[in-house]
């Protein structure tokens, strides 16, 4: 897969930690190095889905990309509680 630029990789990891902190992505992703091709694809899909969910929750256009509206949303002050308690869907806990 094409290597990411250092800056892009850092921004990506910043967004990723934001998504993990607020429950959009599962914490503790495996190292990219030993991912299989299929896993990398699924990995990307998860990330894109997480971005879309965040955009929908935040009431901004859902694009799946880290566009300007999303970048602004990521900078806005907020509550420290996760938006989504990971595992709700699996164990069907009442939302």
């Amino acid at each position: 897969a094409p290597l990411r630029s250092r800056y892009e990789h850092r921004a990506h990891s910043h967004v990723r930690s934001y998504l993990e902190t607020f429950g959009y992505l599962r914490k503790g992703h495996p190292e990219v190095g030993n991912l299989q091709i299929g896993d990398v694809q699924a990995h990307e899909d998860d990330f894109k889905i997480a971005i879309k969910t965040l955009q929908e929750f935040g009431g901004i256009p859902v694009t799946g990309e880290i566009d300007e509206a999303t970048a602004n949303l990521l900078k806005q002050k907020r509550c420290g509680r996760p938006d989504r308690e990971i595992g709700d869907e699996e164990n069907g806990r009442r939302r």
Partner: protein
Amino acid sequence: KRFAVQGEKWKHTNLTWSLKSDRRPSQLDPYATRSVLARALDVWEQASRLTFREINSDDADIVVSFAKRYHDDAYPFDGRGLILAHAFFPGTGRGGDAHFDDDELWLLHPKDDDEGTSLFAVAAHEFGHSLGLSHSSVKGALMFPWYQGIQPNFVLPEDDRNGIQQMYGPKVRKPWAKIPYYPVETPPPTTTTTTTTTTTTTRRPFYWNHHHNRHPNHRTDYTPFPRNRYPTYYPERTNPERPARPPYYPDRRHYNTTEEHPRRTNNHYPRPTPETTTQPTTYRPRYPQVNTEYPRYPRPNYPTDPRHDYPRRPYYPEKTTTVRPTPPPDKPDTCNTSYDAVALIRGELFIFKNRYHWRIGAQGRYPGYPMDISRMWSGLPRNFTHVDAVYERPDKKIAIFLGRELYLFDIQNLMPGYPKPLSQLGLPASLEKLDAAMVWGYNSKTYFYSGSVYWKYDEEEGRVEPDYPRDMSMWKGVGYNIDSVFRWKDGKTYFFKGKGFWKFNDLQMRVEHDKQLPSAQFWMGC
């Protein structure tokens, strides 16, 4: 419906909260902070059955603390950055607690151009989590995750109200007056007075209250149906003093006997028939004719509260000429009097008027009251006419203010060294008397009221605090020269003046409802 009910909720609705003593905000005044936090909780209290009471203990249900960076939980703060605060869902231990980032710039009274974050807005949001609500994706909802500031006249948005009411139910408004109160006409009592000590028995005033304390549309007979489509029919009134009643339904036929209309059983009075309507019908009171066909009053087989609107036997004036000695002239009428003092003593309500007092416990008014005050507190002077103020001190002693003196009782015994002049408490020597005294539930401090000013009294020192007196306008809506004030078991404050009272909102520092409520119905169970 976009609110998110998380799952856990409190099993009880009378929640306690406290500001953690060792984790106070470093840049804010703790007193003002507590006031803002209390207002934030009040947002949820006004929308649900929940009630919040501040206590001075870290065992409260909701413990609020201000901390920086890592602070003994899995969610460290990020300095003056993204995260403002977080809170835990209901539960034991730290369940319900709310943590605020002390590095943030908190504002107690934010203005539009202020840089900083409204503590009230964030606290109201975090207390939503403490009550069991998760984030909502509705923009404008209080539980929206991102900080949105807050309007000065903030009202809880619909989405959040639905969420909290789904968990704890809507607020129950007290039905203050279920039975509309009708002014009744009472002819002047025909009493022949002799000497002042004993007067001859007076016939109880003859009430012309046709509704027997009931709504005019309330049917007295129990013919099950059809419920008549029109409200109860009033006879033509030709009584000059009485204003005419609203117009009656023109198409109603006049039945002068029940034979024509067998189902009608509440034929209480001779209806005017065409031949009689020429001359004005004599104004006759309506005597309810007992309807023998149906069980007139299904007797509830459980103790009923006299204040509720249960069917009661109608009042037969001729049957109640019981011989009853007229009470001595200054004995107050329980259901029609103002109060000199009101106090909660050992969990029971004591109401004082003239030389008498009532005692109201969990079962309601004790029989045999009003009773002479000196029967209970014999240490009072023989010739006193009334007490000015009474309150139970935090050390359970009973303080009774009489004119310029304070009488302190340990239950019924006058304490040695009393009575004391008010000046020894630090009150001005020119002060004639106090109007009221209480221990305020909001901060457990003692307050004295007189005329248009009030003092805060330090129980430890035994003197009023230096920068007092202050103007009574601080207690918005109450006015000057009150009769009494006390804190009821619900922790709320009640001010009395004349024959009515106000319930006081300690957080907003104003009366809950501008109009006074009648004391007799609410406190005496009249």
